[in-house]
């Protein structure tokens, strides 16, 4: 397992594109400095969106020929600021600016059993892991959950490659993933303490699994996950941030993050990962009108419930179920460091 967090930029040529499922595009890139991408890696792409250069990350689904061909699977995000829309517009011959493979989700060695859980597009982060585990002859289970078969990328291919190691759950067929049952089965098996789970999917699914994992007192380090940094408990909506220290209020559109909106308004804030993991962007919450949709994995469940602080890079305010008819946007009042 190599954790490589070193990022360097290069050019990549699009050599192939096709549709993987409804709303999911397969994009094959040929980087000009090929490096084999091991399971769990992603590449960052620098995209020009409305005149702003923005970074978007995509997992490497396959690395062929020593990294000369890197396959990505990109889902068109519902209210996209343009990243995934731009990706869907790529054609063979186009050139993109990209990093080498970046590793922040390494597959371990030596566990007795591996359980991979993919929710929706999160499958892209797990395809290469499943292949590696099969080649190793490891004991593994691949859990695939999605809204409907039409939108589930790689479904047939994975069922074919991994046979009865795959379990498929599809909402619109009423075969839903029962998180309690899945985690309970792991906790009850003799290999419980030596089972590693790798998951990637919507934050709500991952939160539910994290809670079940903790409730069964399974070792926390054995639960690995990657956040794609863009899903929450409620759909994104417009809201307002009040900053009493500065005597200002900033509007956050549904297609931007609070961090971006504050920076665009000239408010200086500190950040590092920009995906809700490190906690550097944490600020104190003084008041909330509506709900806080935290979307981070830094704060504990208990910290989230008290609404004492939030991570600027991913958190949003939402009116929540009760306020869905109300005309006033949700609001948070923050104390900046």
């Amino acid at each position: 397992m190599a954790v490589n967090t070193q990022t360097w930029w290069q050019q990549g040529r699009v050599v192939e594109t096709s549709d993987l499922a409804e709303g999911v595009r397969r994009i094959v890139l040929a980087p000009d400095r090929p490096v084999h991408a091991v399971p769990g890696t992603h590449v960052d792409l620098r995209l020009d969106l409305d005149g702003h250069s923005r970074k978007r990350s995509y997992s490497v689904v396959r690395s062929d020929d020593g990294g000369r061909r890197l396959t990505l699977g990109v889902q068109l995000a519902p209210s996209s600021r343009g990243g995934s829309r731009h990706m869907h517009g790529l054609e063979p011959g186009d050139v993109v600016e990209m990093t080498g493979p970046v590793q922040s989700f390494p597959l371990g060695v030596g566990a007795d059993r591996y359980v991979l859980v993919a929710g929706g597009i999160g499958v892209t982060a797990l395809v290469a892991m499943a292949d590696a585990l099969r080649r190793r002859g490891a004991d593994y289970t691949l859990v695939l959950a999605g809204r409907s078969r039409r939108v589930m990328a790689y479904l047939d291919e994975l069922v074919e490659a991994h046979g009865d190691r795959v379990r498929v759950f599809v909402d619109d067929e009423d075969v839903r993933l029962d998180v309690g049952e899945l985690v309970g089965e792991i906790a009850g098996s003799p290999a419980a303490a030596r089972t590693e789970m790798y998951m990637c999917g919507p934050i709500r699914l991952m939160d539910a699994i994290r809670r079940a994992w903790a409730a069964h007192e399974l070792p926390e380090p054995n639960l690995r996950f990657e956040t794609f940094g863009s899903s929450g408990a409620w759909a994104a909506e417009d809201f307002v941030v009040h900053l009493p220290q500065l005597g200002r209020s900033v509007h956050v559109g549904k297609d931007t993050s609070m961090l971006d909106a504050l920076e665009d308004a000239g408010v200086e804030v500190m950040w590092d990962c920009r995906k809700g993991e490190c906690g550097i962007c944490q600020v104190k919450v003084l008041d909330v009108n509506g709900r806080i949709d935290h979307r981070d994995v830094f704060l504990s469940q208990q910290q989230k419930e008290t609404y004492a602080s939030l991570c600027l890079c991913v958190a949003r305010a939402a009116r929540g179920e009760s306020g869905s008819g109300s005309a006033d946007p949700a609001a948070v009042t923050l104390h900046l460091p």
Partner: protein
Amino acid sequence: MTILESPPVTAASKIFNFPRNAWYVAAWDHEVTAKQPLARTIAGRPLALWRNGDGRAVALADACWHRLAPLSKGKVLGDEIQCPYHGLRYNSAGRCTSMPAQETINPSATVPSYPVVERYRYVWVWVGDPDLADPSTVPDMHQMDSSDWAGDGETIYAPCNYQLILDNLMDLTHEEFVHSSSIGQDELSEAEFEVSHSERGVTVTRWMRDIDAPPFWLKNMRDKFPGFSGKVDRWQIIHFEAPSTICIDVGVAKAGTGAPEGDRSQGVNGYVMNTITPETARTSHYFWAFMRNYRLESQTITTQLRQGVHGVFGEDEDMLAAQQRAIDANPDHEFYSLNIDAGGMWVRRILDRMLQAEGLPSAAAAK
């Protein structure tokens, strides 16, 4: 015979690159403990080596995920190692288990953990692609922990490229010049030798018949056959196994008692066990041992043999260090080969193929 897929590189690279997809010895088993981590660089990767609560040896990258402080300066706490700087803890899989100043653990916080196998009294690590790490490809050094053999060894920290040590061991005619007072003798460079090779191995066989035993071997004969004198048949059968293990079957038997035909009962037999781990392109960890299959009970003989070989290898060490200095001082000079280099050149050919398969050049990057 192998059919060539691509033409071999012609000139011998002076600073030979090393494969990453291979098992290398990182330490003797006793050097890796649950008390304190050991810092050692293996094939260019700085590692922190320690044992967890089950006594299993663990190899983690020697740089904390947080600010890269060396974990080898930290503490082993049961199944975990703690960074000496801000106290992050990691388990043997390299996953962070505790971030003291917060309630959750960043999901990205991991350090690389490398596959480890303990075998033949050594801790072997694999720094390449972990999915290719197959324990059945650990080179055969079974004499090290077999009840038919006894002996001991040491580690030499050699300031030279690992391939220079392989060259040294694949051609033993140098004994005549470097080791004249112990094992060297004129017959070495006069005797015929035979080279054979396979996909992962090279064997060089040399027999010297009806000769006087050099001092080292005369002493060993007398340990087994008190008062022995007279002529001997002497053998050196060098077995190389990729990437860098060389086990040399050595011995002498009373002349004309059938040793070349397979009856070694009237002789003494040893195995010089060598496995060389590149540290950097210009430095190596050289692990050796001398194993014998007679007088197994005697610690005196074990100690004497270890000390004797220590002296012999000290002579090699001086030569290898001087050779590396001369190579670096003469960057525009090439290597040329003699007929005695055949074994070493087959080794290079095998290593070249391994490097090609990994997409690496055979010459290591310049200093």
